[in-house]
């Protein structure tokens, strides 16, 4: 089986590294698409493998669903698409589909000799992106790459739409150092999603280049917010639009919420043993919700790993986090990453909150600050939980600030020590800023506190994706690349790695973004943001104007986080970091830069960012590609079959956008350099 070999070789230039061992050039897409085939029928398996090889894809086959899952888990970014049989003895194909969707969010194609309408419908409702009837013909397999592209594109779009946060600041930070960006960026969203083992953040992060996909990373915090909103609305009334409103997370789109809601429902259903979700989603949801909560808590102890792995299981992660008491504290440096207020990211208002560069954040920061400081109603309770749990973390500071601002303050206050830690730690990086900023943020609504929290995280900003933006959503908390480390991602609990990975290669105090991106650790969970940010980073940065980040700096640093998501996160992270270092006032802005930070990583990203701001849709695409290319620096690239490749492919079509446009013109449409 070939597990992504290509990934490692993320070269900045082309995403090719993503697939094959570096030889494939993006142009060859879809060649090199990494496919995992699962079927208990050996005859079919052999035929499929041969067919896929003929299509020039990289094939890994297995005949057991459990094996497939473990393969996917240990190699989060190792596959681009999964093809699975429906009827398998050890696990139902739909169940596997659900799991993959929740944990890794890869496109899954179902296949079966059964072509009955109900079965096909089941595939649709479970979220399969396609359904093939056996016998499968090679022609059908030739086009499966479209699902990979589509998924990425959708994520981008989401990011764009939701975006426009003021990324201005973030973007400004030019990310000078490619390496730092790589770590941060890449990891953030990718890592967060997939990371289950916190420790290997660094290496994995490479492929996480934020550029790759503007996927929203459902960090623990974000998910908590989401769950809170859902509970508040009630299962029956929990419609994406309302949830989105309640969550009030910038950069999050209704589509993000909708798809997450679907997954969540499936998950709940699974937990509560409800099998049909087609029809009474609500009912089951309701019951499952309760169950889920309970389940969640039970999950806490259970599979942190799994959660961490998925990074995207918010519920679980939350539960886990709480249970785990965030105590996992990644040993790294005790800096309570979570403290770093991811919230800060969101809180634009608190520009002051610059988060100190959390170089260390990673180490300590593992525990992402779930503190979002976002004053959502739900947060309060969640925060409380988080808070408590966070406290338990101790140094780790997993402060899972629930989204409320209050939380922030709670969090901050409650954990002064943690913060202190963060501060200390971060202070190393930013030092001076933190202490002052910390004090401030804490009390203020979350945002500032977010910043503080961020301190720990700010390290993240450095590299980890912290979510300085306290605002709304927990999601933001750890945007980007920080991924796993951040508690938000559920695995962040112990995994400061995420944070560390985030630590931007270079410590740019100013480039919060870049750091953030790099750090990926910021908010691992907040993939979407990353992506969104990335796109939006441009936008945000613009808005962030207030951020003291050097706009220019940011822009670059943002690595072209074309992926809005990337941008967002980074912007935040960067904000935070920079905020801290710079001054709290920037914090607010910092948020964006965080996202932008992602762009920092890849200068290309930056360009992408501004591109994304209000840019045409095309840009995003391009941006992405740009980012990706940059991402290579970051590591994001390799993460999935080359988002870069996709991007580059897309870009190419577009006419070769110049990847490294670091400068962010946040005018929104100043994409001059981007050839459309």
């Amino acid at each position, binding site marked *: 089986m070939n597990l992504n070999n290509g990934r490692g070789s993320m070269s900045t230039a082309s995403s090719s590294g993503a697939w094959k061992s570096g030889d494939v050039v993006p142009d060859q897409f879809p060649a090199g698409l990494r496919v995992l085939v699962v079927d208990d029928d050996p005859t079919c398996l052999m035929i499929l493998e041969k067919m896929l090889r003929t299509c020039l894809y990289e094939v890994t086959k297995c005949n057991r669903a459990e094996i497939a899952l473990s393969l996917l888990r240990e190699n989060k970014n190792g596959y681009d698409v999964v093809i699975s049989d429906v009827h398998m003895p050890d696990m139902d194909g739909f169940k596997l589909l659900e799991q993959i969707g929740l944990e890794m969010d890869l496109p899954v194609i179902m296949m079966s000799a059964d072509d009955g309408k109900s079965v096909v419908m089941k595939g649709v409702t479970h979220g399969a992106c396609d359904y093939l009837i*056996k016998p499968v013909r090679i022609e059908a397999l030739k086009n499966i790459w479209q699902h990979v592209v589509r998924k990425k594109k959708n994520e981008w779009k989401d990011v764009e739409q939701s975006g426009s946060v003021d990324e201005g600041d973030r973007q400004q930070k030019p990310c000078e150092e490619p390496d730092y960006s790589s770590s941060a960026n890449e990891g953030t969203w990718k890592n967060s999603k997939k990371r289950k083992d916190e420790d290997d953040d660094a290496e994995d992060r490479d492929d996480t280049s934020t550029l790759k996909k503007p996927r929203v990373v459902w960090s623990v915090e974000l998910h908590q917010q989401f769950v809170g909103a859902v509970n508040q609305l009630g299962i029956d009334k929990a419609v994406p639009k309302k949830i989105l409103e309640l969550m009030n997370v910038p950069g999050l789109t209704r589509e993000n919420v909708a798809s997450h809601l679907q997954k969540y429902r499936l998950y709940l259903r699974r937990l509560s043993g409800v099998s049909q979700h087609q029809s009474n989603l609500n009912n089951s949801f309701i019951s499952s919700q309760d169950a889920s909560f309970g389940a969640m808590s039970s999950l806490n102890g259970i599979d942190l790993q799994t959660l961490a792995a998925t990074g995207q299981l918010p519920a679980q992660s939350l539960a886990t986090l709480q249970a785990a008491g965030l105590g996992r504290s990644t040993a790294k440096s005790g800096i309570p990453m979570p403290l770093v207020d991811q919230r800060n990211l969101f809180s634009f208002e608190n520009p002051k909150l610059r988060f100190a560069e959390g170089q260390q954040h990673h180490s300590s920061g593992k525990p992402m600050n779930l503190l979002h400081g976002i004053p959502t109603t739900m947060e309060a309770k969640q925060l409380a939980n988080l808070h408590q749990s966070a406290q338990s973390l101790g140094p780790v500071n997993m402060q899972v600030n629930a989204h409320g601002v209050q939380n922030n303050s709670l969090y901050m206050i409650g954990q002064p020590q943690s913060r202190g830690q963060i501060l200390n730690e971060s202070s190393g990086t930013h030092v001076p800023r933190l202490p002052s900023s910390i004090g401030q943020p804490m009390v203020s609504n979350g945002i500032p506190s977010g910043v503080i929290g961020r301190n720990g995280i700010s390290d993240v900003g450095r590299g980890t994706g912290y979510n300085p933006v306290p605002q709304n959503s927990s999601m933001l908390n750890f945007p980007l690349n920080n991924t796993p480390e951040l508690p938000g991602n559920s695995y962040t609990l112990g995994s400061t790695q995420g944070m560390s990975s985030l630590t931007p290669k270079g410590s740019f105090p100013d480039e919060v973004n870049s750091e953030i991106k790099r750090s990926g650790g910021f908010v691992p969970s907040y993939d979407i943001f990353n992506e969104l940010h990335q796109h939006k980073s441009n936008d945000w940065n613009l808005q962030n104007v207030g951020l003291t980040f050097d706009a220019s700096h940011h822009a670059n640093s943002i690595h072209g986080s074309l992926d809005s998501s990337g941008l967002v996160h980074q912007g935040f992270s960067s904000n935070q970091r920079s905020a801290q270092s710079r001054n709290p006032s920037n914090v607010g802005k910092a948020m964006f830069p965080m996202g932008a930070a992602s762009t920092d990583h890849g200068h290309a990203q930056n360009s992408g960012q501004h591109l994304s701001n209000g840019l045409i849709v095309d840009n995003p695409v391009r941006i992405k590609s740009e980012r990706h290319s940059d991402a290579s620096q970051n590591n994001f690239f390799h993460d999935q079959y080359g988002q870069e490749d996709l991007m580059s492919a897309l870009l190419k079509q577009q006419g070769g956008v110049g990847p490294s446009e670091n400068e962010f013109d946040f005018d929104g449409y100043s994409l001059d350099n981007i050839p459309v």
Partner: protein
Amino acid sequence: MEVGQMQRQWVDYTKSLFLEGLLDGQFLQLQQLQDESNPDFVVEVVSLFFDDSEKLLNDITRALEQPSVDFKKIGAHVHQFKGSSSSVGAQRVKNGCIPFRNFCEEQNIEGCIRCLQQLKQEYYLVKNKLETLFAMEQQIVAAGGSIPMLELSF
């Protein structure tokens, strides 16, 4: 027999299998997948199919002989048999699985037994024919010839 003659025989034999409905277009797909890097692909896959099928048929037979028949399990076996046979292009075998599955759902043991009989017949028939075909191929290759490319349009 000289190579050219053997090749013609091979072509005719193959065509007849298609015309009789024993094989369908999927078999052609398999042949098209065969190339220099995988010169024995078809034989390998079909051998795999044979082994798997024997097992399946045995399982089904035993399951039907049980005092308490587990129709669900049999149905699952039949479903798998349908999948694998369709993947190699054994059309008649695949078609034989369809009514079998229905009988399983109806829990009609008589129907199932009859279907199993039918299925076994079809399976052994196509197995026989394919083995003959492969033997012919071996002879051609041994004589220094190459297997012609089929151009049947389905």
